[in-house]
């Protein structure tokens, strides 16, 4: 793959990380919600480069289209349109959180890379061929083949969540 | 299996108890007459038993044997011999009379008679049981009704007396239980059967047991354990203090049964268990027993002399008379032991009479003071007001102080003849005869203060004995006089058994 394409991946990764940083830190919830959206987009691009095209699409549809909008609605329903400037970040936990973050990231990363190294990597050509092939048909086969049980479970879960959310959020009768 | 008369005699009163509990509460007379029936039937059976008891053979008769708990080969083993038949007859008779004597009980009539019948079956069981486990069971069963009878229908501080009686006897029976278990454990074919234990009593010899570090001879310790259990019941001197309390607080009929039958269980137990199963230990302890007997006589008589309460006086006189029984038993002579068992029977009748008579006075005047605690005169000159009552009391008194011609003398004479013929104990007889003297002193002194002399105005309106009371006392009067003149009907019952007992004791 050409360097340009790799650059796009790098940019996507930087986008994701930066917006995630804003989401985590920004005192105003509205801004963090919006930046969450950008983070999702970055992730979608990363999926593309990882050969999960259908996944990227669902990412965009579900997360960007659905969840973020839902969150915005929630924010609007609960913030009284700027009347309440929520001092958002709990001051007393700043110190432990930052220490945690700085400490945790390298450890986590090293742990995962050790895991990756332990596990037998796929041959490069198979990897690139995989990355390029369209995945929608495999996902369909997998959904109704090897992963039919989770698929059924997910449907029930979604139904439950749907009914639950509706029941919880309905106005007082 | 021939007619199970002993089981019947033991369990009919129990049946009666159940029937009474089912009767309606508001008809006391119905309750009373049912209890009369349920004590009357054993009395008739008792008479049948007496007629069919073969006095010539010394072994156990009317045996009923069935295995009860096979695991520990405990048997339901009932039987009587010369030693137990007088006691059985006494129990049956006194229970029957006491039902009439307690006609005056108004409070909780059903409960009273239920407990009473329960008591009678307990007593019958004790005298008929030949299996130690069964004996112990009846021994404990008998305690319960006594506790309630004294505790509920008793006098002023009845609860104290009831508890003292119960705990004291229970403490004794705990020792007995230990001894029983030890005997079961040490006997070769582990058994509770008294006669078997007596047969091979050699097995307990020259064994030792270590208790709290010190080692003791097995048979002496077992003998002592049983002895203390029975001594409390007799009562023997240091363990006698429950008796005055129990008597003073118990209602009339109960103290009649207590004095008439319960005291005899101690000496009966000694003769049934200590003597045959531990002959060597008995010989070892015979002098001590004799000394205790003499102490009992003198101590009881002296204490009786100082009593101001009629019932306490009679209670202490029972202590003194039981002293003769112990003396007779300890003398190891034919006349002595026969006299002892005879005294157990005679004392039963004469003391029962005295208690019934004291009850008669108590029902009318509601106090029993010869001299009131504040020194003023209690009873006085009742002879003028109640001549028949005085006559009956005179007979009872002279019977119990051992006037010849009445039953008291026969047993006392036999005990003294027996003990005197044993060269070791002749000086004890001399001291014992002081006991007779003191006995006559306190009884007649009481008779004088209570019945003779000028009439105490308080009792001017005291009525003489009504027909019910006279009928209750009549059989006892007849018994006392007849046995005084010709004691053979009772004496030849026990003769062969005692001869066998002494022979076994002698051979050891």
């Amino acid at each position, binding site marked *: 793959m050409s360097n340009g394409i790799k650059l796009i991946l790098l940019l996507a990764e930087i986008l994701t990380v930066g917006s995630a940083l804003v989401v985590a830190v920004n005192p105003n919830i509205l801004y963090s919600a919006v930046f969450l959206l950008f983070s999702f987009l970055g992730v979608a691009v990363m999926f593309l480069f990882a050969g999960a095209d259908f996944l990227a699409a669902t990412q965009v549809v579900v997360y960007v289209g659905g969840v973020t909008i839902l969150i915005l609605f929630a924010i609007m329903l609960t913030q009284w349109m700027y009347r309440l400037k929520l001092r958002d970040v709990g001051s007393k936990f700043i110190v432990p959180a930052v220490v945690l973050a700085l400490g945790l990231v390298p450890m986590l990363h090293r*742990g995962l890379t050790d895991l990756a190294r332990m596990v037998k990597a796929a041959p490069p050509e198979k990897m690139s061929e995989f990355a390029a092939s369209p995945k929608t048909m495999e996902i369909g086969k997998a959904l109704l083949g090897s992963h039919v049980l989770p698929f059924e479970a997910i449907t029930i879960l979604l139904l439950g969540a749907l009914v639950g959310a509706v029941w919880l959020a309905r106005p007082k009768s | 299996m021939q007619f199970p008369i002993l089981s019947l005699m033991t369990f009919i009163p129990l049946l009666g108890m159940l029937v009474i509990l089912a009767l309606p509460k508001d008809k006391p007379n119905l309750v009373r007459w049912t209890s009369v029936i349920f004590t009357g039937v054993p009395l008739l059976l008792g008479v049948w038993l007496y007629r069919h008891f073969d006095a010539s053979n010394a072994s156990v008769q009317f045996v009923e044997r069935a295995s009860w708990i096979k695991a520990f080969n405990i048997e339901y083993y009932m039987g009587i011999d010369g030693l137990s038949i007088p006691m059985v007859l006494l129990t049956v008779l006194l229970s029957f009379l006491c039902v009439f004597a307690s006609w005056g009980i108004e409070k909780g009539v059903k409960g009273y008679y239920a407990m009473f019948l329960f008591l009678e079956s307990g007593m019958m069981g004790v005298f008929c049981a030949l299996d130690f486990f069964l004996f112990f069971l009846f021994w404990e069963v008998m305690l319960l009704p006594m506790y309630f009878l004294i505790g509920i229908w008793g006098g002023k501080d009845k609860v104290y007396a009831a508890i003292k009686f119960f705990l004291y006897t229970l403490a004794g029976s705990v020792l007995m239980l230990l001894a029983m278990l030890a005997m079961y454990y040490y006997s070769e074919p582990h058994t509770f059967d008294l006669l078997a234990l007596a047969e091979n009593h050699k097995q307990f010899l020259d064994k030792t047991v270590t208790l709290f570090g010190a080692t003791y001879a097995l048979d002496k310790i077992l003998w002592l354990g049983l002895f203390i259990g029975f001594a409390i019941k007799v009562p023997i001197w240091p363990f006698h*203090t429950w008796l005055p309390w129990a008597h003073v607080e118990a209602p009339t009929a109960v103290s009649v049964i207590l004095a008439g039958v319960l005291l005899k269980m101690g000496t009966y137990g000694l003769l049934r268990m200590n003597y045959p199963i531990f002959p060597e230990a008995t010989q070892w302890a015979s002098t001590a027993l004799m000394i205790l007997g003499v102490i009992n006589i003198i101590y009881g008589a002296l204490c009786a002399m100082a009593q101001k309460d009629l019932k306490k006086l009679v209670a202490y006189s029972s202590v003194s008379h039981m002293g003769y029984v112990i003396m007779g038993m300890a003398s190891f002579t*034919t006349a002595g032991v026969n006299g002892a068992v005879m005294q157990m029977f005679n004392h039963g009748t004469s003391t029962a009479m005295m208690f019934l008579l004291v009850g008669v006075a108590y029902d009318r005047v509601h106090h029993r003071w010869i001299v009131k605690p504040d020194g003023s005169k209690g009873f006085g000159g009742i002879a003028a007001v109640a001549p028949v009552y005085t006559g009956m009391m005179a007979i009872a008194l002279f019977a119990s102080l051992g006037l010849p011609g009445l039953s008291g003398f026969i047993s006392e004479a036999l005990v003294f003849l027996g003990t005197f013929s*044993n060269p070791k104990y002749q000086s004890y007889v001399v001291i014992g005869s002081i006991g007779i003297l003191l006995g*006559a002193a306190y009884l007649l002194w009481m008779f004088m203060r209570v019945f003779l002399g000028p009439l105490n105005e308080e009792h001017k309106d005291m009525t003489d004995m009504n027909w019910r009371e006279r009928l209750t006392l009549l059989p006892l009067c007849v018994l006392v006089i007849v046995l005084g003149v010709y004691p053979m009907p009772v004496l030849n019952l026990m003769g062969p058994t005692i001869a066998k007992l002494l022979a076994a004791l*002698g051979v050891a």
Partner: protein
Amino acid sequence: MAQSCLWIVALPLTAFVIQALVGKKLPRHGDWVSVLAILGSFAFAAPIFLEMIRSGHVSEVLQYKWMTMPGVEAAANSPVLNKAVTLTVGILVNNLTAIMLFMVTLCASLIHIFSTGYMHGESRYHLFFAYISLFSAGMLGLVISDNLLTLFMCWEVMGLCSYLLIGFYYQKVSANHASLKAFMTTRVGDCLFFLGICGLYVVFGTSSLSEIYKALQAGTGTGVTIVGVPALAFIGFMLMMGTVGKSAQFPLQVWLPDAMEGPTPVSALIHAATMVAAGVFLLVRTYPILEKAEIVLPVIGTIGALTAFLAACIALVQVDIKKVLAYSTISQLGFMVLGMGVGSFAPGFMHVITHACFKACLFLASGSVIHAVHTQDMREMGGLRSKMPITFLTMFIATLAIAGVPGFSGFVSKDRILGDALAYGMTHPGWMWIPILGFITAGITAFYMFRLIFMTFFGHARDEHKHHHAHESPFTMTFPLMVLAGLSLAVVFAGPTGIHSIDAKLLPVHWFDHALDTVKAEMGVHGLHVEEALEHRAHGLALMVSLTVAGLGIFLSALTYLKKVISAEAFEKSLKPVHTLLWNKYYFDELYIKVIIQKLLLPFTVLLAKFDDKVVDRTGVDGWATLTLFLKSIVGKFDDLVVDRMMVDGSGNVVSAGGWVLRQLQTGKVQQYLVFTFIVLGFFIFYFVR
């Protein structure tokens, strides 16, 4: 003959039963039942007596088995004495029995008749006769019984009757005390007597007299010792104590004077003629045993002499007519016991019989006097001679007899006893003082008896009112007096004059002596054996001395009381301490009742009862309760404080404290939980990844 003996006892017994049960309802309250019964007994006794006089020898033994106890002949050294025991009951009829039967039934019948008059109108009339019949049955039973055990039983039945009869007027507190004292004192004697019987059983294996007589002759019972004392001596001593109790001898004589509380016929029957004589009769019956145990007889002799002398002295100062007679009875009993002690078996026994007759007569006479003047105090009497001639005459004869005037029965027996006593004194110099005391007592007896006669019948009436009312008693009361007076003559027992030397010439051997000699041989009794010459000299001397002493006594009392030459009061004043001593009966009563009973025994019993209650009961038994309560409180506290507070609550607190600390973590803020989770996650990653 033995069968008739059974009837003799059975009749009064049935009379007792009838009287006791239905006496009140019978006509005349059933006194005729008792009288007929005793007369019936007399009718049965007479032929035996006559048979004895005619043939001079009557003896029969009848035995029944009373109680049998089987036994097995145990090994020789085994601690168990397992011999079979049989107690027998029986009747022994010999000359002694015959004489006694006759005397007892005669006296009893006369007294029954007398008491129908005397007790007339009493409230418990029928009971009186019931008791008297029972008493007669008891006495007769005693007389005929062969077995000492049955003798003992009748002995105690008599004790019971004396208790009931002394306490007949039970309203009187003094009567109750007297009856209790009588019963208890005799009871003391009885207990020791019973020990004697036990001794007999140990030595002879039986208590039947006939067997014992044979065994003694065969020589058994010498080696054995009881309680360290040679057996026969022990038994003898115990039997003697029985007599001492019953016949009111020296240590136990306090009860007889008080027994006068009872009605006079009772005093006559029981405390003069029969019961007290029973004590001596016991000695007579068991004489062979006493003789075998040598040391007992002298003791008996001393007691007899002492009692006689002391009682006689007391009688000197008494003013109550019945008390005088009571003390004279004790004194005469002392004489009998003295006789027994010195070995004069036959005269001793004769004195029993003679004394029974004249003393009964004296008592009944005094009864009729009391009945007439309604007082017992001689100082209120006097000059009744004219008012009551028959009573006076019979009483005078009896007094002559008791004083020992020749020609009367008393002299015969007393003179022989004193003769034997003198002979005994000569042969055993150490015991010479016994006859001396005997003679002095004889003199004193004469003195106080005549004092009684002079004070009651002679002189002028001291109390006009009573004197005026005095009248002769009815025939039912005087007839017995006359019969008894007749029996007080010497001719009945020895010869017209009573003096042995004279009578021997007039008629052959008197039936009484003959009867006693045969029974002595039969029982194996030797009596006092002393050479002919010495005995003759002793009796002669005794005759002289007793005559002079009796005469002197009579003369002196005549001077003081009849002629008032010697003033009794002056005499009293001069010997004031002696008089008070005698008046208080040597303080025996005080010693026994006041000191021993009230000061020692009763306080001791009260103390013992307190000890029994406080120490043995409260501390000994309840002590355990308080101990357990104490332990309970300690254990309770320990349990509460240590185990509960520290252990349980402590750990509870620790846990709750810990809980509190941990609880602070539960702030409810979900984020904090996550922080902790991730911290832990961090450690995990750090730990594993590294």
